[in-house]
């Protein structure tokens, strides 16, 4: 006979402030089969857990219901406690009295009654729970890192240095990400390429890293420790083994007027190109959309000039299928472009540019060789305005968050400008200066005090063109909201950092969650900032939210440690909440009729066929069988099976029915 124990937690006052915990414990204590019912201030605390363990032993409990916070929070805690007291962990259930009751309802009788109902549902369920044993699965010790920006590079190197294999997938022709576009970096003003390039080369040469550039994740199957990824290696149209990277083709290609993405549209590139001189790998790709041969069917100049005959016009995309055990997502971010801002001219004014364009202007390898020249006529701007928070912290524009990096790079930009144009005037419009970070505030102060950058606290309402000048209209709120007008030669918008293109599709392929801004979502905002909700998939860098290089690198190393910890095990234990098809004695074997409809709905191809043979070896019945390694326990097959032959551990038909009946108080 069932002997159930019920433990009502006050959660400090989080639950007891609105729910009469004493009454709940008392009412539940009177239910049939409830052998013990009590309340306590903090069930999750050490004494709370001891109380539970002692009760399990003393009252010989066959099941317990801890009525506290969400099971998504503490189910593992209490299941572990149960196991320590000798009770099978799957005979422990949690009733969610906090998130689903005390925090969302007023203090009154109905709330307490609801609490009683919630607990009763779980008491009835746990009575028919089965003891389950964890499933053991092997771990494939190869990691997949998606995105080759600084975060992906760091993660890949860290994992590779623990001795494990890494597959690094980058969708553009070279690794490096946004950092490769930056001129100098705050707060030290060291040249971005100089610190990044050695890392890129290390990736290329590391014996444990396999690099796939110009490639994307096509699909993902499996689960922690046992994923199968399909990677689409897009046709580069050259043979990477034959190509020596001499670059002759790129200089001879007649198609030269394609806007250069790396230069943020401020320069041109040929149809066969390497994105930038330090690219890794330093092998070109043919941009088939713009190549004359693919458009008109003739040209092939590159093929003629290539000294090693490495051009392959008919190269197809390749699909690679690789087994991996863990994934780090490091696909980075992007910024809003100037066309997002109607008030600043919808991107029409050539001399209103964004931060990345300024980085390219200030970069020694950029389109101007590092000279600050305005895009419209190549003249040095005498008066330059920087607008911080362009789009950020602006709910009206749909971006309520702070992009975090702009205050710092705006100060950097103003400084770089002053270092190059000594007699020029730099103005910065800002809302607040957010420069928390080691040596960050000192950096901003230097811009103001040593480089005499004019910081104006206020927003810019409009920018318009008049006689070849840009009129910047704003206010100075420190001077009592005085309207202000600056006649500028050039304006740089520190536009909001946003999720990278394709982030949503990737999240859907990987089955990880993302937030309303399409940034990847962490499992817990404070305690699991590196994990996603999907076991075995981790986050690094700006794909989670805009962040600077030091933060991206730290998180990347964090993600690498998570992967290394996973790979330190030879076997993982998995929750046994999987489906099963019933079996009975011959001649029936199972109530399954072998229609295999379930096979067609299972998202994980976890349903196999099992044949029963007679003495002569002839198959007399074929029925469904669940592969426990693959089944993720969604239960789609269970709801579908017409002969009710499949059931799901932890959520059996009987349990679900019982819960509903208990909820409606039919017992």
């Amino acid at each position, binding site marked *: 006979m069932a002997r159930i124990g019920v433990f009502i937690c006050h959660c400090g006052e989080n639950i007891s402030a609105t729910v009469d915990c004493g009454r709940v414990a008392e009412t539940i204590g009177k239910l049939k089969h409830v052998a013990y019912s009590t309340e306590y201030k903090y069930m999750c605390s050490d004494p709370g857990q001891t109380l539970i363990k002692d009760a399990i032993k003393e009252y010989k409990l066959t099941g317990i219901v801890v009525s506290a916070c969400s099971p*998504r*929070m503490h189910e593992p805690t209490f299941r572990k406690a149960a196991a320590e007291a000798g009770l099978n962990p799957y005979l422990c259930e949690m009733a969610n009295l906090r*998130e689903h009751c005390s925090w*969302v309802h007023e203090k009154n009788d*109905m709330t307490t009654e609801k609490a009683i109902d919630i607990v009763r549902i779980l008491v009835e369920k746990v009575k028919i729970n089965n003891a389950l044993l964890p499933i053991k699965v092997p771990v494939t010790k190869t990691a997949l890192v998606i995105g080759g920006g600084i975060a992906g590079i760091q993660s890949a190197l860290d994992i590779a240095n623990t001795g494990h294999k890494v597959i690094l997938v980058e969708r553009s022709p070279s690794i490096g990400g946004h950092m490769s576009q930056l001129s100098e970096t705050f707060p030290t003003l060291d040249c971005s390429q100089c610190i990044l390039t050695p890392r890129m080369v290390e990736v290329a040469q590391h014996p444990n890293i396999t690099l796939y550039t110009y490639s994307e994740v096509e699909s993902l199957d499996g689960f922690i420790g046992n994923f199968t990824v399909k990677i689409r290696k897009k046709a580069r149209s050259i043979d990477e083994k034959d190509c020596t990277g001499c670059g002759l083709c790129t200089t001879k290609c007649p198609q030269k007027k394609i806007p250069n993405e790396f230069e943020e549209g401020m320069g041109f590139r040929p149809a066969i190109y390497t994105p930038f001189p330090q690219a890794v790998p330093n092998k070109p790709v043919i941009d088939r959309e713009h190549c004359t041969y693919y458009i008109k069917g003739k040209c092939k100049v590159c093929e003629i000039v290539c000294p090693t005959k490495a051009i392959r016009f008919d190269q197809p995309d390749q699909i690679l299928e690789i087994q991996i055990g863990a994934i780090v997502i490091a696909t980075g971010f992007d910024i809003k472009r100037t066309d997002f801002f109607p008030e600043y001219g919808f991107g029409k004014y050539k001399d209103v540019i964004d931060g990345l364009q300024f980085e390219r202007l200030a970069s020694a390898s950029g389109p101007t060789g590092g000279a600050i020249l305005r895009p419209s006529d190549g003249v040095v701007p005498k008066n330059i305005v920087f607008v911080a928070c362009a789009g950020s912290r602006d709910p009206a524009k749909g971006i309520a968050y702070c992009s975090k990096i702009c205050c710092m790079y705006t100060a950097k930009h103003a400084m770089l400008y002053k270092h190059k144009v000594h007699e020029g005037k730099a103005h910065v419009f800002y809302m607040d200066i957010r420069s928390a970070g080691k040596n960050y505030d000192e950096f901003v102060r230097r811009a103001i005090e040593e480089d005499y950058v004019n910081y104006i606290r206020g927003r810019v309402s409009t920018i318009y063109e008049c006689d070849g000048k840009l009129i910047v209209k704003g206010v100075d709120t420190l001077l009592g909201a005085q309207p202000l007008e600056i006649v500028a030669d050039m304006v740089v918008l520190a536009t909001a950092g946003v999720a990278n293109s394709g982030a949503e599709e990737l999240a859907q392929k990987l089955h990880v*969650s993302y937030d309303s801004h399409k940034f990847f979502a962490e499992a817990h905002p404070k305690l699991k900032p590196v994990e996603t909700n999907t076991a075995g998939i981790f986050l690094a860098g700006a794909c989670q939210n805009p962040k600077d290089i030091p933060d991206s690198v730290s998180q990347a190393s964090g993600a690498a440690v998570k992967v290394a910890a996973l790979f330190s095990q030879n076997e993982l234990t998995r929750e046994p909440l999987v489906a099963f098809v019933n079996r009975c004695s011959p001649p029936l074997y199972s109530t399954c009729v072998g229609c295999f409809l379930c096979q067609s709905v299972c*998202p994980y191809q976890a349903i196999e066929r099992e044949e029963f043979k007679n003495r002569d070896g002839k198959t007399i019945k074929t029925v469904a069988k669940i592969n426990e390694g693959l089944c993720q*326990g969604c239960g789609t097959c269970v709801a579908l099976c017409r002969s009710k032959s499949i059931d799901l551990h932890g959520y059996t038909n009987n349990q*679900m029915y019982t819960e509903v009946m208990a909820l409606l*108080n039919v017992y």
Partner: protein
Amino acid sequence: MSEFEPKVVAFVCNWCTYAGADLTGTSRIKYASNVKIIRFPCTGRIDFMLLLKSFANGADGIIVSGCHPNDCHYTSGNFHAKRRWIMFKELMDFMGIDMNRITFSWVSAAEGARWAEVVNSTVTRVRELGPYVSYKQMVNTSIEEEVTHA
């Protein structure tokens, strides 16, 4: 007489709506306490027969809620749920079940406020419709009839 308090059963998936309802809690957004949640791994697991059982046993309203299309933790469970729902809805309608008593919605783990809205609007609607006795009566009479015929 005290005001009619509807009994509403919510069938939700663990990954989106259950987590969304958790977020409603962490955000301290208040909603009607008439709703009680049954947790499923996925909307794909929900056997719609349970909806009928609920009505037959005294539920006045029902909410079914899971992940938005394409966001299913198990890739496609919610699509199967939706397909099944399209069929089942017709059937329930044919059986004379008042479809106004059922809310089918998507609430993600980030939509704490939306969960409160879904609950409140359902409770308000069901409160106006009053206690759901007709289906219960129908089921009970047909059982009685069977018994008397036997």
